[in-house]
């Protein structure tokens, strides 16, 4: 059986200065699918994410350093990573967008549940926001929201003290790639 690994929200940890063990319940390199095609490396992506959400700046961040360490068979083919900052550049949130390979099995409920289980230190609660199911969990100082849209997985990590987490989540759900 092919072992497939994928980085989940690693860049979030780097940007917020947290250790992987501190913010994730499981190994940061989980097996997520038995069937994804081997070899193709995951690429940093530039998805068409809006430049602002609410009144906050959204800016792509460089994840090439994090991703270059990944070897082996990966379920994801592109990862985009974005910071959400106040006008004074204070980091309030991050958005990670992962595009899965067509043969990764991303449609399967088990695949999604496995990934959701990796995010955060608390058991994820599923909330219906509009027509989207968002899996919300907490980790050190962060609230995480995870949702899926076709081959894309979104991970929104919000600083705990930010006063508009739901407004930001609602705005982020409008991102369509």
């Amino acid at each position, binding site marked *: 059986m092919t072992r497939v690994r994928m980085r989940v929200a690693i860049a979030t940890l780097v940007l917020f200065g947290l250790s992987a063990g501190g913010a994730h319940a499981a190994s940061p390199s989980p097996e997520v699918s038995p069937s994804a095609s081997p070899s193709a490396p995951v690429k940093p992506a530039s998805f068409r994410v809006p430049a602002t959400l609410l009144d906050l700046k959204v800016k792509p961040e460089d994840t090439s350093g994090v991703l270059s360490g990944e070897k082996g068979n990966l379920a994801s083919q592109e990862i985009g990573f974005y910071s959400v900052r106040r006008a004074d550049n204070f980091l309030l949130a991050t958005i990670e967008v992962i595009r899965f390979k067509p043969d990764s099995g991303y449609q399967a409920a088990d695949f999604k549940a496995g990934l959701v289980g990796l995010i955060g230190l608390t*058991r994820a*609660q599923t909330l219906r926001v509009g027509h989207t199911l968002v899996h919300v969990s907490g980790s050190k100082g962060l609230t995480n929201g995870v949702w899926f849209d076709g081959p894309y997985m979104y991970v929104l990590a919000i600083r705990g003290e930010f006063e*508009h987490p739901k*407004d930001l989540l*609602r705005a982020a759900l409008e991102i369509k790639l």
Partner: protein
Amino acid sequence: MLVGLLLVSLLVPACTKRDDATSELLGILNRATGSSYRLQYSESTTGQKLVVKTAVEDDLRYQADVTLEGKSVSSEIVRDDARALRFFNYEQASRIYLATVAPVVPAAVPALSPSPSVSPAPAPSATPADVTVTPAVANGGLEQLRSGDWVVDKVGATNLANTSSVSVKAGKDPVVDALTLFRYVQSAINGGGGPSSSAVVKFNPESIDYNPRFDPFQHPDAAHGELRYDVVPPELPPRDTSITSASQLIQGLPGVSYFRHLSVYVRSGLPTRIQESISIERRLSDPQNDLIQRLADVGTKISNTLPLKERATAVLAALKRLEKDRPAATTQEIRPRELRADFTETGGAVKVTLPDGATIGSFGPRFARTQLLSQGSQ
């Protein structure tokens, strides 16, 4: 003989296999939880009628209007991070709202937090564009709340992660009770309020198990495709007179599920009505009921000659007194009540908006709630 066997085989399966009915009902409740809906939740307890009208757009947006004896008490609107409150009767409303987060303070209610900010760092303005509001006031909006005006706290509902602490115990906060009704029913099905889980059966007046005398609810409107799922109260094991241990006897006394009749009316795969009746009188009116004897076994004598209502009151008092000696799992509060919850626009385009022209205030932790609505956990 053959005819007799055939008749028995027709009668014994009450109508559908119990496991199937349970799965069907849980599926119906899950579908409804994932939909927008309006709900009128009416509860009668000890002569008081309380109504909560709710509109649920999604898990981050709802409205709940509370009336007591036909008089408005409070309105609450949660729209993402913003929360609007209007107290028509300040004393009654603050009792409801404070019950969730702090002991009830009926008299002097302290002022609301004077500062709208709970963060050490200034947050950017992120008011949803479709709300018009008047400028913030210095006292957090307390005076406006006292005088019955709408007050909006733009960051009054920011608790996104914490849904796990929602209690499914009824009676403390009617808004919580109304908004967590589906979870309450799921808990009742899964054995909440008693040592054993309650069976679910589809209503069938032809069933050998069905006794119209103990059915407190209307029959479903079968002509219009309405079904009724009944969460059947569990029966107690036969009274065992050989047991002498008081503690064992007390553990064997019934919990709330024993007194509860709960039915879910369904049309087109979605609930249209939920009714619950928790009644000690109904149980005692069964001539075969031996609860008075069971209480006598643990040293609580209640006269069988008392009028039914007084007997029920005495039984309730005795069971409450003995609660401290029983495991927590069986001691969900026995609270006689009649509940009727009517659903409309389920799956429709229910929209929840903040009131225009409201005062901007800050509730601080005073009336804080956890995230109430949820689809469950992963």
